[in-house]
């Protein structure tokens, strides 16, 4: 357990270092677990932002590897390129055929660079739509989409090739996908870049993941006039799973052990698998037209406004 400690885990790190010096002192281990629980019982929103971004947090690739068998990756948007920042494919989940979409974040620096830290290009969103159509129309299979991105790629190339158009098209066309879609926010749900593969019948969120219209840093810099106000911004933005559940934007929080998914990969992945299984069983029973109507109504009713 040589995990990178996060800023709010200072006390934990101290105990950990003591444990390394005195590996036989079992009370230290006990103290470590107690402190871990204490810290994780009173996390601030920005702490959760840091957990959600932890480089060792399991990513789409990990879920695919652990939860799906016979996975076949499908490439390309049939128009311009194959964006590695979004992985798409088909495989079996608990014996049932499913399509999979997900942001790819990479496990080490080389991978992270090759997938642009999960910031997708227009061709990534176009690929996702193409594959979702293929899976639903030809394989009649449900789709599972893993959200984990800081946001869409903010570059000249992405703008030139229509990142806004690609995301907009997905937001619309995913309402026409005629099989169930389950969306799981597993890390960073970064704005339009996340939502671009985020339309679905059920939106699930890991306990220590976030979903926000803008990063706390961006918000702090624009609205607070001070980039150092990220913690306040994180609080104001209501970006945690708990906040989003309270706002009725998501359907379900998936439990994550104290200490976070990066410390407890297997357990977290199992929790995600269980949640997927439960929701899939429910969704496949719903007649197609009802499903599409409900999906639409789900999003149409999102909004808080005064009517006077």
């Amino acid at each position, binding site marked *: 357990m040589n995990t990178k400690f996060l800023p709010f885990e200072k006390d934990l790190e101290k105990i950990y270092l003591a444990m390394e010096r005195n590996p036989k002192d079992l009370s230290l281990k006990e103290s470590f677990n107690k402190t871990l629980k204490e810290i994780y019982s009173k996390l601030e929103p920005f702490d959760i932002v840091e957990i959600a971004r932890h480089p060792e947090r399991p990513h789409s690739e990990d879920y695919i590897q652990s939860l799906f068998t016979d996975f076949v990756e499908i490439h390309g948007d049939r128009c311009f390129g194959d964006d590695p920042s979004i992985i798409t494919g088909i495989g079996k989940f608990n014996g049932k055929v499913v399509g999979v979409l997900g942001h790819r974040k990479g496990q080490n620096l080389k991978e992270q660079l090759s997938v642009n830290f999960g910031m997708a290009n227009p061709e990534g969103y176009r690929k996702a739509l193409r594959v979702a159509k293929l899976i639903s129309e030809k394989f009649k299979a449900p789709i599972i989409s893993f959200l984990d991105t800081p946001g869409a790629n903010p570059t000249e190339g992405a703008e030139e090739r229509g990142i*806004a158009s690609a995301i907009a098209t997905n937001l619309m066309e995913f309402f026409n996908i005629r099989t169930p879609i389950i969306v799981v926010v597993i890390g960073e749900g970064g704005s339009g870049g996340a939502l671009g593969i985020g339309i679905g019948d059920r939106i699930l969120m890991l306990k220590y993941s976030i979903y926000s219209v803008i990063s706390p840093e961006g918000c702090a810099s624009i609205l607070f006039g001070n980039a150092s106000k990220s913690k306040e911004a994180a609080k104001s933005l209501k*970006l945690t799973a708990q906040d989003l559940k309270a706002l009725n934007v998501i359907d379900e929080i998936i439990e994550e052990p104290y200490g976070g998914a990066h410390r407890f990969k297997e357990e977290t992945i199992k929790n995600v698998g269980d949640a997927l299984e439960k929701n899939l069983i429910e969704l496949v029973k719903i007649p197609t037209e009802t499903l599409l109507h409900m999906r639409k109504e789900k999003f149409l009713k999102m909004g808080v*406004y005064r009517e006077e």
Partner: protein
Amino acid sequence: MKKIVKVITKNESKEWIRCNGCKKLLYYEELIENKKVCPYCGYHFRLTAKERIEYLLDNGSFKELFRNIKSDDPLNFVDKEPYRAKIDEIEKNGGYSSSIITGEGTINGINVALGVLAFEYIGGSLGAAMGEKLTRLVYYAIENNLPLIVVSASGGARMQEGIISLMQMAKLSAAINDYKKNGKLYISILTNPTYGGTTASFAMLGDIIIAESKAMIGFAGPRVIEQTTKKKLKEDFQTAEFLLSHGFVDMVVERQNLKQEITKLLEFLP
């Protein structure tokens, strides 16, 4: 179209305005008559939502709809000041209650459903009130068999409404999907500026997308892109003309010709 405009060099007064394009001083009254387009360089000054409606619709034909839908504060958001205080104050001072005006009117005699974003209300940003008003307009257009025209001018999402703002992108895309499935024509007009969540949802979903000449249009703002890529951007980056050459808008139109071009399209409808 070109008008005679006196240019003074000494003093700017309220009656004179400096062009953001060519920096010449323009006589305000005449600028207004020219639909706020500089007669020297063609610079399109920003319009208020009310001016836009005036320029686009037949005189007196506009009937506002869904005015009763107003911004709220879903997150109890506080930055330097509480968001609620901000929206209350705008309202108290006689301003809008949301960043869009929705309604119905005629364009050279043809009935249309029209939504016009108000950049002057918190940068035309996409909040839940806009989401709801535009959604209702879309279904109103379906029920009343009207072409739908939306004029965008927006900095993007309403940050103060957080995830609720983001979800308006999905909500509006769902509504427009229903509209399109009904086989009806949606014309999206992009004006300066159109960015972020607005661009990445309803603004880019027009059956026909018209951009006003030289309007800046994009997803990420130029500053964010320059910070990320550490490269200087091309001069025409994210202009209407740039989007045209990259295939994302159907046509770029000068403001003076906008009503006429839209009329042609509407007259083509069966």
